[in-house]
């Protein structure tokens, strides 16, 4: 290979890289800017947050006024964050357990009406749950679970099932049967087999299911709005409707920005920490 071709190739690579990263940086700016603007604006001081929005960052030093204002809504921001966390984490745990069992059942066993059951679970995706909220509300009331976080958690778990069961079934399908047979011969059975041998193998799937369950439960708004009626039990999105509705007839945009940040940061952190699992799981699910 002559030096000249090498050079053109290197130059091409350089300009190709420039174009590539040029596009990447510009596109990244559009995706990231709203977060940064909201984050920076939320750090403007109380008096500043009522002034014109440009520039969207604090000019008189960083202040947590907006977060303090946010804390004056409802029962305080810690209480509502705690509620949201409790609901989200419980949803994660229950969803993982239920979908792990169901995914295993659907992948490895034959039983009557298997396909009917599977379609039944997947069909949950098809119905806008907004439209069954009233019957849901009445049923929860009959079970003594209305206005309770437990009721909300069970509803969230159900809403997660179609995706999660689908995901877990695929994850189990991808595990070669030979591994299972070998373990069986070694005497591992049933739940023990599932937990000891198979669980580590489907961990990426579990992670995906868990992250999706967390994010969806953390972000859900309408069911929480309708099913909860105690101030103390409101989750963050419901609290945010009160912030958005304003107080004394004026919206406090600083508090809105602070609220958006409180809602956003956990999602971003969890995603960034676990994205390897998340993406791998998502892709495994999508290929099917």
């Amino acid at each position, binding site marked *: 290979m002559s030096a000249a071709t090498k050079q053109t190739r290197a130059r091409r690579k350089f300009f190709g890289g420039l174009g*590539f*990263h040029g*596009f*990447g940086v510009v*596109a990244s700016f559009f*995706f*990231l800017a*709203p*977060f940064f603007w909201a984050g920076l604006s939320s750090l403007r001081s109380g008096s500043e947050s009522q002034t014109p*929005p440009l520039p*969207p960052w604090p000019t008189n030093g960083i202040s947590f006024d907006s977060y303090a204002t946010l804390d004056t809504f409802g029962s305080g921001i810690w209480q509502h964050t705690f509620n949201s966390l409790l609901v989200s984490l419980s949803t994660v745990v229950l969803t993982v357990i*239920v979908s792990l*069992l*169901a995914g295993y*059942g*659907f992948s490895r*066993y*034959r*039983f*009557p009406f*298997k396909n009917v059951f599977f379609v039944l679970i997947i069909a949950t995706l*098809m*119905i*806008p749950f*907004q*439209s*069954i909220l*009233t*019957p*849901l509300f*009445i*049923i929860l009331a009959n079970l003594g679970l209305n206005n309770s976080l437990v009721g909300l958690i*069970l509803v969230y778990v*159900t809403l997660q*099932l179609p995706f999660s*069961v689908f995901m877990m079934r695929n994850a189990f399908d991808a595990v070669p049967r030979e591994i299972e047979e070998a373990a069986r011969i070694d005497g591992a059975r*049933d739940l023990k087999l599932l937990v000891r041998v198979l669980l580590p193998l489907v961990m990426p799937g579990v992670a995906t299911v868990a992250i999706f369950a967390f994010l969806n439960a*953390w*972000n*859900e*708004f*309408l069911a929480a709005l309708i099913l909860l009626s105690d101030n103390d039990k409101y989750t963050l*999105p419901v609290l*945010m409707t009160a912030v*958005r509705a304003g107080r004394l007839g004026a919206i406090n*945009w600083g508090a*809105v920005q602070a*609220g*958006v940040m409180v*809602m956003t940061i956990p*999602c*971003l952190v*969890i*995603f960034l920490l676990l*994205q390897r699992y998340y993406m791998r799981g*998502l*892709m495994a699910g*999508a*290929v*099917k």
Partner: protein
Amino acid sequence: MSMTIATPLAAAEKPRRRARKNRQWQGLLYIAPAIILVTIFFVIPVLFTVWMSFHNWPLLGQPSWIGLDNYIRMFSDTRFAAALSFTAYYTVIATIAIFALAFPLALFVQNERRGVSVYRTIFFLPVVVGLATASLLWVWLANVDSGLFSPILRAFGVTGRSANLLATFNNAFPTIIVMVVWKIVGFTMIILLTGLQSIPSDLIEAARIDGASRWQRFRFLTLPLMRRTLALALILSVTGSVLAFDQFYIMTSGGPQNRMISVVYYIFNQSFVSFQLGYGSALSIVLLGILVALSVVQLWLLRVGDDK
């Protein structure tokens, strides 16, 4: 590449009938928790919804049986017709916008270059934020007094005085589409990426050596091999758009002048604002029918291609 149940093992276990029957019960046991939850919190509410749809069912007070009246009423309900046509319009525009951006982005992040995983992550970030949170964020950004878009547009001379981006349909609709694309496109991008990556690279390489152009490779290899992925992405996108609610509720309350009332929004209004639960239920049933029909049509369209 769907994996069928591995046949050799199934054949080997023929003599153990009882064990198999036992295993049947075990299978049911494993799926039982899921089935119980789905039954209580999904099947029963849906059946209940069907039952309610045959009633005049005020939220407060006594329901009364009215047979098919709710369904008949839909045909003369101009506001429902408006909601249907708006939802269809939104679905088409949003889906086109999302795919038009998601495909180039997927091709972009398919590159095996340094730093590509960072871009992938960044483009995906808005996906993990809730739609309600995103709407709230964008309501602020688009707010004429406190937001950023309108002073920025003014600074660049796009608009004269500060423009209210949510005041007219012609401004508010594109604003919402931009928000939705920002929020969703990363998801579609990743799904498409999985499709792209599942194509064996030696196949593409072989075509390249055979002299197929970049476009030819894309048109005759990539696209056909991605049918299943495209189907999945399309179904998810269309279903999501047909069910859109949060963004209209939070960003414009269905306005300006009721021009952004989606079907779900209309059902919500009928059920929880006008408290006509029976009519709301009937509308839900119709929406369900539409969704099922849409999915069947999409699956069928894509499968027809498979058989060729």
